[in-house]
Each structure stands twice: as C-alpha cells, then as structure tokens.
C-alpha cells in the first residue's frame, strides 16, 4: 500500500507538505532530522536578531520542538530519527491534516512566528519583517512579494497577525485551491 493509498490527502496538500520538507532539507539528502528543524529555527531567530534565550526566542524553539515530537509520535519513531519525504508527508498529514494536532502544536508555531515578526506588537507585519521571515524559510526572492500580496487580503500594505495565522492554518491543513494561505511560502 502506498502513502497515497493510505492517506486521504490531496495532491495540493502533498505539494504543500513537500514545500515544508524542502524548507528543512537544505542539504538535499532526501531526509530530515531534528537538527534540520533546529536549523530552520536558528535561521529565523538570527534573521530577526532574536536570541534563543529571550522569551519570544525560547517560545519559538519550544514550539518547533513540539512539532518534531508530534511528527515522531505519529511515525512511532524516536526523536533522533531521520525521516524520508514519504514518511514526512505521512506523519505531517496524520498529525495536522487528518489528526487533531494543528491547534495544540502548529498554531503555537504560527503565533510564535507572528510574535517575532510583529516586534512592536501592533498586530501588523510589515514587508521588511515578512521578507526576513520568508528568507529564513528559503522562499525564492521572486515569490516573497507575491506571497505578501496574497496574504494581505485588504491590500493595505501590511499583513496582520490574524491574516498570517489564518494563512498558516490554510496552508498546513486546507485543501481549497483558491485559499490565499496556499501562497504562504510562495508558489506551490
């Protein structure tokens, strides 16, 4: 039985999960481990000059830890395991698409990301902070402006924290080809 037989994810969802896998697998060896996730977290924090021992920095890294723990739990692996693309798709889908883990696990990640992007806590993320975030995630330069436009639903030149969190939910769990959140990390 293949992964697609076993899971009820759509091709769109698979493409989005593949994008997330590629964000982690920067050495392109076809597997990811906890250090890859830690590396993504570090790149995000350093992009904003945020130390891992500030309150927002620690919150982000702890939230990332929970994502890895949830993934490993779904795959029945220990924390130091390495995960292939197929395993990653399956674990992420079981945890966050068909499973109940988005709210307790991935939403805190989105909130921690938004907290750091919105440094002055006015509920708005400006294009500079958005670009810093996207650079950390490895979004191609040309896609960053497109992604910003797709998430800025009211076209006021700012992405709100609410818009970012909604986009994250649509990206990780949704199956609507028309959803703006599909553009969270650029073209899928």
């Amino acid at each position, binding site marked *: 039985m293949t992964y697609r037989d076993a899971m009820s994810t759509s091709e769109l969802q698979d493409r989005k999960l593949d994008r997330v896998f590629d964000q982690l697998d920067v*050495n392109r060896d076809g597997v990811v481990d*906890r*250090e890859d996730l*830690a*590396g993504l*977290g570090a*790149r995000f924090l*350093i992009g904003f000059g945020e*130390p*891992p021992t500030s309150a927002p920095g620690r919150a982000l890294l702890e939230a990332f830890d929970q994502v890895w723990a949830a993934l490993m739990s779904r795959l029945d692996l220990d924390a130091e395991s390495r995960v292939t693309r197929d395993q990653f798709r399956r674990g992420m889908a079981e945890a966050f698409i068909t499973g109940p883990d988005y709210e307790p696990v991935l939403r805190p990640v989105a909130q921690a990301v938004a907290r750091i992007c919105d440094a002055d806590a006015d509920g708005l993320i400006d294009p500079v902070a958005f670009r810093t975030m996207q650079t950390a995630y490895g979004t191609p330069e040309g896609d960053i402006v497109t992604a910003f436009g797709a998430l800025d639903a009211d076209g006021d030149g700012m992405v709100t924290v609410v818009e970012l969190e909604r986009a994250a939910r649509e990206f990780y769990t949704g199956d609507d080809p028309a959803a703006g959140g599909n553009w969270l990390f650029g073209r899928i």
Partner: protein
Amino acid sequence: MDVSLLLPLADRIPAMTAPCRVHERLWPIGEESLAWARSHGLVLGEADSTRIGRGRFERLVCRILPDVAPARAVLLTEWLLWLFALDDTIDDGPIRRSATSVDALYEPLALTLRRGTARPGASTLETALADLWARTAPGMSQDWRRRFRDHLAWHRQGCLDEAVARRTGELPAPSRYPAVRRRLHGPFLLDLLEPALRTEVPDEVLGLRAWQILVDGTADVTAWSNDLVAYTPDAHSPLNHVAVTARQLDLPPRTAAAVLVHERIWARLEEVGHAARALGPELRRLRLDPLRARGVARVASALLAAPRAHLDWLHECGRYSPMPDPSVPSPRRKPRVTLT
C-alpha cells in the same frame, strides 16, 4: 564571590530572560564524557573531590547545543574537560609562576595538533588532546584547522601572560584587560561550535564587524562572569576583572569593583545584542546559500545562548564553590536532577 551576584542579569537583560532548552540526553552525555576523562587520567578518584570533576561541563554544553547528536555534545564536553585539566595543571602546580615552564608544558601540545598523534610516553594532556583532535578535525577544512591552531596559540600566550603576572604582580591596564583575558579564556572553544554543528563559518562572515562583536562579546561576558564568581583575594589567577579593576581604581574588590564589573558585563551584553540585530541584514547581503546560511545561524544562535547557559552552569556547577567535606556522601549524579 557568590554567583547570586550575577542572577539579576537574567531579569534585567531581555536576551537572557528565558532559560536555555537543555539536551534531553544530558545525563548520559555527562556520564560518557566523565568516563572518557577518567580513561585519559584527567579525572582521578572521586570526581567531586577535584575542581575539574565538579565542573559538570555537560550542563553547559547541553544548554548551548540542545539539538545536536549526543556524540557531538559528548565531544565538546570532553574538550572542556581537557581545557580545564590544562588550566588546573598550570594553576595548581609549581609551574604557575614560570612562563618558561608553562611554555614547556604547552609546546608538546601544539606539536600534537600538528602531528595529529601524541608522542610515545606522552603526558595525559597530550594523549587526550590527540584523541580529541582525531575525532574533531576530520571533515573540517584546512582554514578551520589553521584558525583553531591560531586560537590555541593565543591561549598559550594567555597562559604565559598569566604566569608572568603571577610572578611580577603586574596587572594589565583595564583598557587592555579584555584582550588579555580573552586569550586566556580558551578562544579555540568557540571554534568548536562549528564541528559540533557540522558546519563552518565562511571567511566573509568571520570578517563582519557584527560577527566579531558577537564572538568577542560572548567570550568577554562568560570570562568576566567567571572572574566575578571566582574572585578571592588569593585567587588562582591574577588576571581577574575584579582584581584588575580594584587595583587600578583603588576600589574595594568585593563591593565597588564587583559592581563595576557587573555593570561592564551588562554593557557588553547590550553590545552583543546590538551586534545580533545587525547580523541578520548583513548576512542577507552576503546571499549565502541556504545550507551555509543555516549553519552560520546555528553557530550564532549557540553563541547567543552562551551567556544564559553559562550563568545557569555557574549556578549549578561546583567548580567555584568551596570543596565539600569528604566525609559527607556526594550528591553527584543522583538519577533525579531538576533542570530549568
């Protein structure tokens, strides 16, 4: 002095308000590294009866590197054990006032790195160093190895400076103190973050002003914190920030000089914070490839974690507290430990 003098930093500096995440394999990492130190004769007898055994360096490493494979955390812990064994050999031995003798101790160590092996009948420090190097250098570039050897040579010079200061009683001026102290603090240790994180910081990043402040500032903060905690009137090392400040400004060491050093630590932490905020834009300008950019970020993140990790380690380790009564059973390594 008491480490509690430093604890307010964790409240006053936003970059230090959250405790580090701790490697979940802390316990076996500590056990394995201690076993290695015993096998090389760096720790003899009851661990708690020696200053090095009371160091519990895994508690520092596991805070700075909470996500690495355990073997790499073990290796860095062993490097710390080796460095402190070297320091203790100098501090506690008859050579402490003789730069010539210190140099003679260091020369075979430098040669060990160049040869890659220890001489037949070599000292425990040599054989341990050869083993560490054999497990660290593979995979690292010639540039990194050269940088590491350069920094080891800086440490050697720092040890010579310290021996001269002990003999003559002359201390560096406060303005020169940071650079002198940095050499003595084992600058090569920060290079070891790169093999531990399976990366190398490229030359264009090493040359950034923000990076230099980040590295030097991290070394300064941890060194001066050590100075504050380790200060006693008859301290092992005269190259102590409290001693230098007290002497130069004619201040009582335990009060006014200590407060001044505390304020300098705080100010240096703020400089490190500014450098961290400047680093992101500078790195983006360099357009590093994703793999390299991530490696640099991990090293930077470890450096930024170091001040808080070091503070908590100082609080937990027994290296700077009075030696315990040997008749009292040691609480060391009970299976249940409470971590922040």
